[in-house]
């Protein structure tokens, strides 16, 4: 079985998620080749063939052109599956490739389950196994399939190694329906959660903006930083610079305390590398319980003040 891996490159840099593609291919037991629209200046450490197209020429975001480049590589390699990261790049590009090849797509694979692709449904409250039509994937010979993998679900086991054998791709024309204008930086107000040892985060379960100081008080009693989940930031209760998750910061503190956070997958992806996770939630079945080392089943607004008082003592 052969997988064509589609690397990611943004703002002049290779993205680390690219290495998760290789980890996924290894888990599949598949041989792999890689395609990257990037540059010679930042190549992935990869043992194998790398189809490289120049991002300077074909853009960092230009799905029309990138689709054609992927199709070129498909023609050359005839892979069994084409693998993307389920990211703003991957979920945008993958269906375009799938339509061009009339291939089935399986989105946001979180695990391989007994020879089938496992994905989330209903806010991760259910799991589905999905198979490309007629296929025996991922174990045997399968029909061509387009796959996107959840960021963080397939971690590389060791440091990536090797130097790729480069093969360059070119397109004859660069006409496109999309014109990329540029990037807008994230608003940063000086909170660098990525370096924090302790983070105490507020989620929707804190109830209202007026309750956020209660969570902040625990953060300060523990000598940590205040974090927040996306709904809390979107509601304007906490500034975006405190947001943990795929659209905020990815953190790996020694202690992460999730207060009233149900554990949407976008949030989990941003904090599950924490050494020790405490979740405080009224709902015993909340997805955060899946990854928490300790789940305190309690009302946040009752438990947190009591715990803060204990810490202060």
């Amino acid at each position: 079985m052969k997988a064509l891996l589609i690397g990611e490159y943004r703002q002049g840099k290779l993205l680390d998620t690219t290495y998760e593609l290789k980890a996924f291919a290894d888990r599949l037991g598949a041989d792999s080749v890689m395609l990257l629209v990037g540059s010679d200046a930042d190549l992935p450490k990869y043992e194998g063939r790398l189809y490289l197209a120049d991002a300077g020429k074909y853009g960092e975001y230009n799905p029309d052109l990138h689709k054609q480049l992927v199709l070129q590589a498909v023609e050359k390699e005839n892979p069994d599956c084409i693998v993307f990261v389920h990211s703003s790049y991957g979920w945008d590009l993958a269906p375009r490739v799938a339509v061009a090849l009339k291939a089935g797509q399986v989105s946001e694979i979180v695990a391989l389950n007994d020879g089938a692709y496992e994905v989330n449904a209903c806010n991760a409250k259910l799991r589905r196994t999905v198979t490309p039509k007629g296929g025996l994937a991922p174990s045997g010979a399968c029909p061509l399939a387009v796959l996107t993998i959840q960021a963080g679900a397939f971690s590389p086991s060791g440091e990536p190694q090797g130097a790729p054998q480069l093969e360059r791709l070119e397109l004859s024309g660069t006409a496109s329906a999309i014109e990329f204008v540029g990037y807008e930086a994230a608003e940063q107000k000086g909170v660098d959660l990525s370096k924090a040892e302790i983070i105490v985060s507020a989620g929707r379960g804190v109830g209202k903006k007026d309750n956020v100081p209660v969570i902040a008080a625990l953060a300060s009693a523990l000598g940590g930083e205040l974090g927040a989940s996306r709904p809390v930031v979107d509601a304007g209760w906490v500034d975006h610079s405190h947001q943990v998750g795929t659209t905020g910061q990815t953190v790996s503190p020694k202690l992460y305390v999730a207060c009233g956070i149900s554990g949407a997958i976008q949030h989990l992806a941003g904090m599950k590398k924490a050494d020790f996770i405490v979740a405080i939630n009224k709902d015993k079945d909340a997805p955060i319980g899946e990854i928490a080392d300790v789940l305190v089943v309690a009302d946040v607004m009752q438990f947190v003040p009591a715990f803060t008082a204990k810490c202060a003592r």
Partner: protein
Amino acid sequence: MFLELTEEQKLIQETARNFARSVLEPLAPKLDREGDHPAFLANLKKLAELGFMGLNVQGEYGGSEAGVVAFSVAMTEIARACASTAVTVSVNNMVCEVIQAIGSQEQKEKYIPRICSGAYAAGSFALTETGAGSDPAGMTTTAVLDGDSWVLNGSKIFITSAPYAGVFVVWAVTDKEAPKGKGISCFLVEQGTPGLVIGKQEEKTGQHASATNELVFDNCRIPKDALMGKLNDGFRIAVAELGGGRIGIGSLALGIGLAAMDYATRYSTERVQFGQKISSFQATQWKIADSYTELEAARLLLMNAAFRKESGRPFAKEASMAKLFATEAANRACYNAVQMLGGYGYTADFPVERYARDVRITSIYEGTSEIQRVIIAREILKNIG
């Protein structure tokens, strides 16, 4: 028979629920404890803009033409979050409906759109007096024709929204010689009219954000055409319109009762005593079963009364039955909810004590439970023998 809401009614319920949860509920504890009058009025304005002040009012006057069933489900959803807001909305709807029912074309065009659009924060219903509560026909406020004006004298009490109402529907005696109840007429009095004095605001047990005041008429002079409906026909109208108001208050009580039981039931699945969740004790389970059964019965009584009114059929008996049962059931539900939370249920750290205070008045205002029983019995007995 089909016991489902229509798609429109479901959407109105969803709109009411979403607005109540995201806008009204977060403010409700503050309104209860310290008050925030500007925020309260701002929410009334938003509700008006969404069309909640004239649910059963024609579009030409700025109403929503959504009907009485929609009014009932909307009241319940609003009251789940904030009873003070809900009672204001209920009274506003009743004021619009009474003007629509008996007002002149000019009166309808002038006042209803102002309430529906939120130009007036509220309308007020001025019937009750110190000596005329359950017996409104015993009122003593008078209106005397003097040239081109009516001159009002007397006072009213327990008037909802009085300080911020744009217009008052006022009942007064216009023929002292007529038999009891036959000499009363109905008037529209604008806020700010000289001689209309907003008196003392009551300090109430609950529903704190909704102002309840005394009204004093001190030679209050209003134009001759401020008379609404026929002369000396006002009491019959009051009685008829109170029926609709009872559906509103019953629905409001249902909302408070549901809020209390929803909170207490969830709490019972978290609270542990004797090593187990208190929801595992039969004593708790019976409270949950009893209260939800009664609240469901209340809901069906309310739907029935609302549907009858919406269909143009007699509904006075059904409205009284629904009001009686829903408000008493909601009181019991709040009692059970406090009991399920134990000592915590008696503290301001949990919302059930507020629900328990807010719900208490529902079996009193818009006709006490005792008066509802009088009406129900009278309606039943009048068809016998």
